[in-house]
């Protein structure tokens, strides 16, 4: 475990001594702030128009925060490949791959350390967006007394972290397959995009394929969590995807040493 943390710390320090971590953080902060203001303004306008009973407009949680989660999910889709691309591709390009694999460390510890570092950086970047619920809690008001439903905010962030961690896992695996960071980023983006595109396919195919596609489509797994319903199935689904990507990355780096 000590080695895993040593490697994770190194990853984190590199993310924040190079432009990548800051670039991701800036992109997340800028784009999410734009959408947050837009959602808030829309909410205020609709409230003013008196349509308070429309679904999603009863309170700030459903009207703003839940909708913001959808936006954050998309920003993560763009940011994650840029963060994950360097995890292994850069080690190979810089020839530091040999340093790690000749150190008295298990290869699984290397993979886990890198993954933890990646999740740490995307977690820190998503953490910036906690400012929005905080702003609403401080400055918002509600007739019922509670401005925000914190349980919904919590499950929403759980959903975002599961999604971001899965993106990093897939990105790390692809990064382990190539020496080119740009290629790793593009491939990760394409894979994640195809995963999203499954949603379109759901409508155009028949049963039983439809149920299968709906199950593997990440959005249908995430929706309950993002709406505040804790769904253990979804947690298991994403944890399985994460474990699978770690195992595949481990196999990929091991295989490269044999050739």
């Amino acid at each position: 475990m000590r080695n895993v943390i040593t490697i994770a710390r190194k990853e984190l320090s590199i993310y924040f001594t190079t432009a990548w971590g800051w670039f991701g953080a800036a992109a997340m902060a800028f784009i999410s702030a734009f959408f947050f203001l837009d959602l808030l303004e829309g909410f205020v306008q609709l409230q003013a128009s008196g349509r308070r009973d429309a679904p999603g407009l009863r309170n700030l949680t459903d009207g703003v925060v839940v909708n913001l989660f959808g936006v954050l999910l998309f920003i993560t889709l763009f940011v994650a490949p840029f963060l994950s691309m360097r995890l292994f591709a850069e080690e190979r390009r810089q020839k530091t791959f040999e340093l790690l694999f000749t150190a008295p460390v298990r290869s699984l510890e290397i993979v886990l350390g890198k993954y933890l570092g990646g999740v740490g950086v995307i977690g820190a970047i998503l953490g910036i967006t906690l400012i929005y619920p905080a702003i609403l809690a401080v400055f918002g008001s509600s007739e019922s007394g509670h401005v925000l439903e914190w349980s919904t905010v919590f499950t929403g962030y759980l959903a975002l972290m599961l999604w971001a961690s899965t993106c990093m896992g897939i990105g790390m695996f692809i990064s382990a397959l190539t020496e080119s960071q740009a290629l790793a980023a593009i491939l990760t983006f394409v894979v994640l995009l195809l995963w999203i595109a499954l949603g379109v396919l759901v409508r155009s195919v028949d049963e039983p394929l439809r149920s299968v596609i709906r199950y593997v489509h990440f959005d249908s797994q995430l929706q309950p969590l993002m709406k505040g319903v804790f769904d253990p199935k979804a947690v298991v689904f994403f944890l399985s995807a994460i474990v699978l990507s770690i195992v595949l990355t481990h196999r990929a780096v091991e295989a490269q040493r044999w050739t």
Partner: protein
Amino acid sequence: MAMLEVQNLTKRYRDRVAIDALNFTVGEGEILGFLGPNGAGKSTTMKILTGFMPATSGRAVVGGFDVFERPLEAKRCIGYLPETPPLYPEMSVRGYLAFVGRLKGLKGKALANDLERVAAATGVTQELDRLIVNLSKGYRQRVGLAQALLGSPKLLILDEPTEGLDPRQRQEVLTLIKSFAGKHTVILSTHILSEVKAVSQRVLMINRGKIVAHDAIEAFSQGKENGLEESFIRLTAA
């Protein structure tokens, strides 16, 4: 006692044989010059000995530990400087050496002391707080050597450690390697024969994946100034 024992070590890449049934031993405290023309299989051999790459067959035992069966124990005995120093340009020299030290199991005061020791030995003390990206090629090579020395490994495997250094730096590194005699076992791979003459006691020469000579340095020079060069050209001609 032998620090390194290599038995029938073979590596095949599909139809190409990179190294073919190598057998040799290196004694404790010995400095071995590892010679061979480009593509002879030197780097492959070193990658296998350091546990980076598995062999197709045969075995290698470092400090009593089989590299393939007990890789972690064997790796703890080895300090390795690959052909290209494995550096993270965005880290400071201190941060980098601390990272490698931690991977080798050092911590706290012991890590700080060892870091100072290797920095002083390789002459990078003044550069500890500089970013590696800003270092000259010579200093990068020294930092690469410093990381290999961390944890005082019994066996040092150095792949062209003087590459890219100016004559003065080259001399300093060679003097440093020479000072390891009796303390560390060193495998020094290079194609600069004068360096081998300057520091090594024994020479292992390979050509096309096979050992063509393994003997004391005097046996190659035979009292002649350029005896090692002549032997090298003759033995690697095939």
